[in-house]
């Protein structure tokens, strides 16, 4: 959280408004008025935001809000029906080495003959055809990445036998070894216990800070990210509003986004978003994740 000018609490008007948080830093990702459809259904509507180097950004939204589709648009796997995505100021190409990607729900068979360090090394150039000659550089680079995610202890174990949190760390190292500018992780905290989730969040924040990588992760629960998040992109029903958490996660802003009244409660430093009554409540994940661990 160092550097950069103090943030003026700007008025957030509508979904397209997005006050730059650290204008001195390089813009890594810029999503401009993106629409996306799945079949006939519009999943994303006029989504705009930008992400800068070294920032930690959370993509928050309930299941079905369009988080995975937004990631797929950024990765170039789903076309945007309108708008554009710029990476480091340029139009994205099919395979973009600027992005490191950690997919959702990664489960590897325990019989897979793959050590954690093998999976990390595959991040270097496994997308290429032909034979890779093993080299000292590869080994050292993998070792470096394993150290960066604190995974040296289980570097020689089969990936399939690691715990969810450990696998997540190995996957982050796999994504980082190609030296991306943007790290995308789709629900990396899903299926993790509270402690592993906090560890993964702390690790990602450290990576953003130390390696000046833009970290962008999706989650359906905002609280684990609050301590480290520089910016939030809040998705509801395909529309987005973005900015610093304290400017976005407010009753008036989210009410405008959802199109009906939304309560935002602060309880013991946690945020609880009540996105409506009756049926709407069912559509939104409503949990008190860290209640037990509060001091």
């Amino acid at each position, binding site marked *: 959280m160092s550097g950069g000018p103090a943030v003026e609490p700007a008025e957030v008007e509508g979904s397209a408004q997005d006050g730059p948080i650290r204008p001195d830093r390089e813009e890594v990702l810029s999503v401009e008025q993106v629409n996306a459809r799945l079949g006939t259904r519009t999943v994303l509507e006029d989504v705009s935001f930008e992400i800068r180097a070294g920032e930690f950004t959370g993509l928050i939204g309930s299941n079905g809000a369009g988080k995975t589709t937004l990631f797929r648009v950024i990765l170039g796997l789903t076309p945007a029906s309108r708008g554009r995505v710029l990476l480091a100021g340029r139009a994205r190409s099919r395979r973009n080495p600027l992005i490191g990607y950690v997919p959702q729900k990664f489960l590897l068979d325990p*019989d897979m003959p793959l050590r954690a360090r093998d999976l990390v090394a595959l991040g270097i150039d496994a997308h290429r055809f032909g034979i890779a000659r093993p080299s000292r550089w590869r080994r050292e680079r993998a070792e470096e990445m394993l150290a960066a995610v604190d995974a040296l202890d289980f570097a020689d174990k089969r990936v399939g036998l690691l715990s969810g949190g450990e696998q997540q760390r190995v996957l982050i190292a796999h994504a980082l070894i190609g030296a991306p500018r943007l790290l995308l992780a789709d629900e990396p905290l899903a299926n993790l216990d509270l402690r592993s989730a906090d560890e993964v969040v702390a690790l990602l924040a450290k990576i953003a800070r130390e390696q000046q990588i833009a970290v962008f992760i999706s989650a359906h629960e905002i609280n684990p990210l609050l301590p480290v998040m520089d910016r939030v992109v809040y998705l509801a029903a395909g529309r987005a509003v973005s900015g610093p958490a304290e400017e976005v996660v407010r009753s008036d802003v989210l009410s405008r986004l959802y199109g009906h009244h939304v309560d935002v409660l602060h309880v013991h430093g946690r945020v609880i978003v009540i996105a409506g009554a009756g049926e709407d409540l069912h559509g939104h994940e409503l949990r008190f994740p860290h209640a037990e661990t509060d001091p």
Partner: protein
Amino acid sequence: MSHFLSPLFQAGFFTSDAVHTALIIGTTVAVVAGALGVFTVMRGQSFAAEAFGDIGTTGGSGAFLVGVGPLPGFLIFSVLAAGAMELVGIQRGRGRDLATGIVLGAALGLAALFLYLGSTIHNTTGAAVTILFGSIFTVPTSTIPLVAVLAGIVVAILLVIHRPLLLSTISPEIATARGVPVRLLGTTYLLALATTVALCALTIGSILSTALLIGPAAAALRTTRRPGRAVLLSALLGVAAVWLGIVLAYDSYWWSAKHTSWPVSFFVVAIVFGVYLLSGVPAWRERRRTNRTTG
């Protein structure tokens, strides 16, 4: 050497042309099947391999009916099956069990008809056993060039695609995001698999063909934690099983007073099965140890 090993190698073993041909073909096929089989097991496509074997039976029987060697029949039918499978998308959906089962049943039924008609036309009766259960000592030397070419094609495909194939086996999402043509790769691999199954069918029979493909690979995956070593070990185990099978089958001629040799296929499959059972021991121990430390 033949001095102290004479109890193992019966008279005439090293001078028999049938044995030479069997060793050359068996070794080649075992190497290819072992290497490719590692990917088959990792991708969970053992059932596809089994299907190619069944449909190959129809091809082998058809080849017998028209009076040519079985290998072209095995090859054409299993490659066609791979193409059909790719078109229908059987390799993904598990809900297609029923359709697959019915098609495979029909293929074997057709094989029964071809074998019956063939034996009435050619006035021979051994063909069914040769095609279904293999008879590597009766494979003519003239088949070696075709076997070598097919084996070379499979090895070449593997050398070119093994890295992106491994990546897309681990995570199709990551592979796609990194620009790997996952679908094309899957199809290429499936063609290589169909070719390999045809080679295995020639060696140990179409019904038993998957044993040589899956068995050594499954044992190797349990034994080593590294992908490269798994491929090497799998090929080695396959070669060992084939060699030992050939020696034992040759020797079995002298085991009974009636001088009838047991089939090579029986020995190969029995050895593969034994190796697979043995390979479970260290993996089981490893898992138990891991469970104890993490749980």
